[in-house]
């Protein structure tokens, strides 16, 4: 299991951030997530694998300084 925005979700071996976002609704404006506290941005979504028991938060649309 993984926790995404404080909701439990099924996990499977090899799932990437991109696959996770594809499973969720309304994620087209997500450009960064926190995976176990670490920032992961769009260019790494395809290649970043999510470990089991991960805690993930989807960051809001990046809005600049």
């Amino acid at each position, binding site marked *: 299991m993984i926790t995404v925005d404080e909701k439990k979700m099924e996990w499977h071996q090899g799932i990437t951030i991109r696959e996770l976002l594809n499973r969720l609704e309304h994620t087209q*404006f997500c450009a960064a997530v926190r995976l176990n506290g670490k920032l992961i941005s769009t260019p790494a979504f395809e290649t970043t694998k999510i470990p089991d028991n991960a805690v993930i*938060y989807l960051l*809001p649309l990046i809005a600049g300084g």
Partner: protein
Amino acid sequence: MAEFTLKEIKSLEYVRPEIEKGYTDHSLHVDLSSKDIKINPIEPKVKEKFIGGKGYDLWFMWNSVSGKTKWNDPENAICIASGPLGGTPGYPGGGKSIVTTISPLTGIPIDSNVGGYFGPYTKFSGFDILEITGKSDAQIVVLIDGIDSKIKLYEAEGLTDDSYTLSTQLTDYFDKEKPVNISVVSTGSAAKHTELGCLNFTWFDAKRKRVRYKQAGRGGIGTVFAHKNVKAVVARWGSVSMKSNNPADFDAMKNVTKLHAGEINELDPKQNRMALVGTTHLVPIMNDHDCLPVNNFKYGMHPEAHNIGEAVYEHIFDKGFDGCWRGCAVACAHGVKDFVPFTGPYKGQKVFVDGPEYETVAGCGSNLGVFDPFFILEMNFYCDTYGLDTISIGTGIAFVMECFEMGLITKEHTGGMDLSFGNRLNALELLHQMVRGEGFGMIVGKGIRKMKAIFAKDFGADAAIMQDIGMESKGLEFSEYMTKESLAQQGGYGMALKGPQHDEAWLIFLDMVHNFMPTFENKAEALHWFPMFRTWFGLCGLCKLPWNDIVPEDNRQNPEPAKVVKHVGWYADFFSSVTGRKVSPDDLIPMSEAVYNFQRLFNLKMGYGTREFDTLPYRAVGPVTVDEYLSRVERYDKDLTENYKVDITGMEITEKVAVLRKHREARYEQLKDAVYKRRGWTPNGIPTLETVKRLGIDFPDVIELLKANGVC
């Protein structure tokens, strides 16, 4: 600390105007030449049209300066105003001041939105706006004492030029028993030698028992302040509560405050964690998306960028509450204690550094090719202490470094200094020269536009290449975002009224990453709505960060998540509850639109404000050099072939650079056409008669101005 004397030369006792629904309806004017102090009522029609904050600043400045006024003329005004909502404790970002003056860099009004307690304290002392004009022969300290209902002018002798020490001394002097009652505005000693001077606004950090800083950084306001011979302006006020603004509907105000603060307290730890890391979370995100300026905006990422991002600063920042206004839940104004500089007058001593924020990290770090978090702290500390804008300093030195590496300037011109990218010691030495008023640092302190002229005229440097790589527009240095791949953000910078600062529009991700605005009309709509809404914060005395840096959990279900419509609704409720003027979310844009267009007309009055001034250096639009093109060759080749339908078979890189430039520059001009049309401006970028009438800013002198410029 050195001994100093304050000799009282003028004192005015006044009956403090009561605050009614967020307003005192009075202005305070100090003329430094005549030493006159005047308190005047503000007309209801001014309140209705200009709202407060930046709106008031611009209106008062408009009436003080002529179209021929230069920054160093006595009639140039420095205006500081909060706004009707400013000074609400607990409302996130609810304590801002907005500062304006005619900028030494641009010749047009500059505005800067700054934290610290000064604006609210001045309002609670009885004044919606402070306007300072004239020029004093002796150094002056202005005291606005709302507790004793007195305005005083002092001639100062022996006060230090060091901004931190000065603020501490004056805080002690004016209320040693309750230092939290004091907020000081000052600059530093480099402001008088450069055109990049900032203002430091203080609040007293009761937990750390020290004066803290936020900066009104942009456009050289500190330089004007120093030129007028103002040593400091001090506001003194006592208790603050949610009733201080005497809101029209206290319960409604309390309710919306609770909602917004509660949401931030709950969601910030899950989102950007600004209460822990400030805006440094942006460093790795910008880097990952090729938007972090590296080596004078030449590149957008660097493998060492993680050394200067949130992961490092989270551990360096001193833990504790860091709100620049009372009870702000965002609390992003972090600092570092016991930092020990390795150069300059504080070498080897422990100091407190207020910062860094993202802009300082990117400007004084990656853009100089430096990825050392402690070097950035030292640049941050000395810029604050010397009264310098970290953005213009960072972008300006980055330009110098590229000129040095290109051979446009040499050690012969720099006083023997190697100013290659990454040279930390010599970057710091430029700051120390600015404060001593000597050496090559004095040229750098004039800003990029004047540097370009000096390098060309005196050093024989190639003016054309400097025009391409000198990251300024309207005379103001760029803030720290890469715009090459976002046409919308090119517009956000190029058409920003005061010059390329991101506070009008930050559209890079919507445009570049999400492709949310594919057409010129889409981009023009965004370049209408966002600058107008962001302007609204400056009218009301608010910070924009709580609007869209922490957002409701269901925000992404909204078809236009960038607008954060739930928060827009809260802001309308907040405004209604304090002022008693019932507004809906749809009313906020027209409020800003009047002031926004008025500022554009102000630029016109000063001899600017037309299409020819909304230009960009090509570095902001596309690759200037072959190296730059080659570094992203796949991207640029694709742009040529897919977007511009160019057959690049057999093309040399130099030809590709030239062809891409032709297309991208044409595209920016098309964007200008679309934006001007959407804003109700002529193709030359001037508000039409119809627009000024619709917005109710068709004052007689505005009509005369339009006539003089062939609009009606």
